[in-house]
């Protein structure tokens, strides 16, 4: 059949050309989203090239940058090892020992995620007004971010096959050697992944460090930005920050190694025996108790104290209602938009895995590792130069949210799409639905819980987002986090307390729900 002939007809059915299918339409959408996701990186490269090497050199190689670099490296190098030790010890206690109330301690270990990092900082500084510098930064960072390490390590510890430990003991290894030679190596992936997450947060966080006056790249960029908008100095700092993120990603990739850590063999593992703590129980109990007091007790007590001091008067300000309304509105809109943008990628990675899908997925995920300050700076510069009408509009703010929280949305969606059998999609097509309609009516309907979960995850992120909101929000926009921020800058801790409480109340249920789901997914 020559290609120039007219469409062949079979009965009354027209054979459509095999060119553009439903899959291609989805792939095209994913490509478009990926291109948008590359904007911040493109911005850094473009701006560096445009600035000229001489200026770049002068802006990057100067004492201030060196100082920030030292601060950042020290913060990472001190925080992460301590966090690893604490997370592994805590996970072992809650998962593998007979610690009284292990279940409760495990919940309390995750709950600090429901308190935004800068609220942790606010709690500490109002408790100890003199907190400054590296060690304060390390302390508050661990309190705020330890769950990122605890969660994967504890999950991995639950999955370990106790038969390996039995065998190691039968090979003459004492319990402590079994821990270091068998248990710890199998936690490597979880530790690497969790450390990366903590490390990226340390790089990206602005509010936490600004409040205790510990200078990092993120705080320096925001300072620069607030004094000179998109000056080349801020842009170059952003470039260095992006490099730091890439170094971290590379390091993690290196350390993770190629080994497979899954259980070899078949059959269900017998539940692991819990180690007896015996007379050491009280000593061990000090760890989860101490961490819970510092990471939950301090924020909650401080909040309670400020709320008590403020009394009913602190709640009478009109700001609270309007900030709550605006925050919820942004969270819902952002959640819906981001989930919609993530759908094509999630569908592709479940239904049509391949090389294109891998490349696109990498694009989707990489923005998640970029600090909000870089995304915001890129969008400011781009809107000012190319699309001025979009500068300081809701659209730009929502776009920033979308870019920052795209990875969460993809992850949530992918899991639930994978559970909707492709056969149903095909059956719908066999019953006369065109492909895209079949996907929409069957697969999307079945993965509604996943869609809801990923919207909620994104909304949670937006509710407590500070940096990008500060930099991009249109004049007159007041969210819980920005209002909280301006009040704490004026040292009005009493008035700030209701905003902090609302953020915690909005985040906490979702945090606990996520923990519940992660336990249930492995049958506990």
């Amino acid at each position: 059949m020559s290609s120039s002939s007219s469409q062949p007809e079979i009965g009354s059915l027209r054979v459509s050309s095999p060119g553009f299918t439903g899959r291609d339409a989805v792939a095209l959408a994913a490509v478009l989203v990926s291109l948008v996701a590359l904007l911040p990186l493109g911005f850094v490269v473009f701006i560096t090239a445009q600035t000229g090497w001489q200026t770049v050199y002068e802006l990057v190689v100067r004492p201030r940058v060196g100082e920030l670099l030292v601060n950042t490296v020290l913060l990472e190098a001190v925080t992460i090892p301590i966090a690893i030790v604490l997370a592994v010890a805590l996970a072992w206690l809650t998962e593998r020992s007979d610690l009284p109330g292990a279940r409760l301690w495990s919940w309390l270990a995750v709950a600090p995620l429901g308190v935004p990092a800068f609220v942790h900082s606010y709690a500490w500084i109002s408790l100890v007004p003199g907190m400054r510098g590296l060690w304060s930064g390390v302390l508050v960072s661990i309190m705020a971010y330890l769950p990122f390490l605890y969660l994967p390590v504890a999950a991995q510890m639950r999955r370990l096959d106790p038969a390996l430990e039995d065998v190691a003991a039968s090979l003459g290894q004492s319990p402590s050697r079994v821990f270091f030679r068998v248990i710890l190596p199998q936690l490597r992936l979880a530790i690497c992944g969790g450390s990366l997450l903590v490390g990226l947060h340390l790089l990206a966080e602005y509010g936490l460090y600004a409040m205790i006056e510990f200078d990092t790249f993120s705080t320096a960029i925001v300072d620069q930005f607030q004094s000179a908008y998109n000056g080349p100095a801020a842009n170059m700092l952003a470039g260095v920050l992006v490099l730091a993120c890439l170094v971290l990603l590379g390091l993690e990739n290196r350390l993770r190694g190629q080994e497979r850590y899954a259980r070899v063999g078949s059959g269900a593992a017998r539940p692991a025996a819990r180690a007896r703590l015996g007379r050491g129980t009280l000593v061990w109990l000090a760890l989860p108790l101490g961490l819970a007091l510092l990471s939950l007790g301090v924020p909650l007590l401080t909040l309670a104290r400020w709320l008590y001091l403020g009394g009913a008067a602190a709640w009478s300000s009109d700001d609270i209602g309007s900030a709550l309304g605006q925050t919820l509105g942004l969270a819902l809109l952002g959640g819906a938009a981001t989930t919609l943008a993530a759908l094509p990628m999630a569908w592709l990675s479940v239904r049509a895995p391949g090389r294109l899908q891998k490349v696109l997925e990498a694009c989707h995920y990489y923005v998640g590792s970029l600090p909000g300050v870089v995304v915001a700076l890129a969008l400011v510069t781009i809107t000012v130069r190319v699309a001025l009408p979009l500068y300081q509009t809701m659209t730009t703010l929502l776009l920033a949210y979308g870019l920052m929280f795209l990875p969460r949305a993809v992850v949530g969606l992918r899991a639930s799409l994978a559970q909707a059998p492709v056969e149903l999609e095909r059956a719908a097509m066999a019953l006369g639905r065109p492909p895209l309609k079949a996907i929409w009516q069957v697969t999307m309907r079945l993965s509604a819980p996943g869609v809801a979960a990923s919207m909620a995850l994104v909304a949670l992120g937006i509710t407590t987002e500070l940096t990008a909101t500060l930099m991009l929000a249109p004049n007159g926009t007041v969210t819980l986090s920005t209002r909280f921020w301006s009040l704490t800058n004026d040292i009005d801790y009493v008035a700030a307390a209701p905003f902090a409480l609302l953020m915690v109340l909005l985040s906490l249920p979702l945090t606990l729900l996520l923990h519940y789901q992660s336990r249930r997914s492995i049958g506990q």
Partner: protein
Amino acid sequence: MSFLSIDKAGKRYGAMVALDDVSLEVASGSRTAIVGPSGSGKTTLLRLIAGFEGPDAGRIALNGTVLADGPAIVPAHRRGIGFVTQDGALFPHLTIADNIGFGLERGATGRDDRIRALMRTVDLDPRLLERRPHQLSGGQQQRVALARALARQPKLMLLDEPFSALDTGLREATRKAVAALLQEAGVTTILVTHDQTEALSFADQVAVLREGRLVQAGAPHDLYRRPRDRETALFLGEAILLKGQAGVGWVDCVLGRLAAGTHGQRGDIELMLRPEQVKFTPSADEAAQGCFASVVDVEFGGALRAVTVQLADGNRLRISGTGLDLPPTGTRVRLSVAGPAHVFEA
């Protein structure tokens, strides 16, 4: 002469009794199979011997050394007892070489040579040494697990259903190879399995566990021919169970008068025959003496076949085994019994 001795061991998990008053002696250099349905406590018994858990009551001694006296135990890592699990439990983060050498001191002289020698012992290609466990087949993984356990030259080797994850053909071959290998090394071995054929063919001594109790222990042939009760009889293989009357050294039943050890019992008893004891020959002779039946069903299964016959009193017997004869249904056959019948002790 007893190498391992278990004396009145008991273990319970909460309200569930896993082991109740179990006593077992294992001779040096022998092979013992502990067999029982799932939930019978056989894995618990193995874990007590290995030292992963302590008994609530009872003593366990190895070569004169007390390993457990009630809950006070010598921990597993000081016992020098080898252990191979159902799926091998290879360390996924280590290469095959490091798995085998796991129990050997790092940096010990001749460590690499020892690892290579062990690979040869279990008949594995030394080129696999740098591979990871997941790159090996199930049978290979099981051999590595055995080599790893042998590396420390254990006095006693415990095998926890090590063949059950393998395919049927591979299972038999691996079982024979392992039995030969352990025999050669002179290692006393205890195998736990729920497969009675495996137990009977592997061991010198078979111990049957049921609901946490040791029902019977002895030579495989003894257990098969003279089980203590009907559950044990049926667990170890197909059995024909009949009612009968006992006399001195004989029993009367629908098959006629059969030789039997009656343990001094008289009157109504239950007796057991293994199907292979019953022979049948087609016989059209109405007047002949003996026990007659007619074939009502024939199941053909290749080398094995089962013929069901109906006796004059309506009783049906299923006679399974090998044989060339496939009588059509309705054939009149004459039944005869080879060897003595077994009478269960009261």
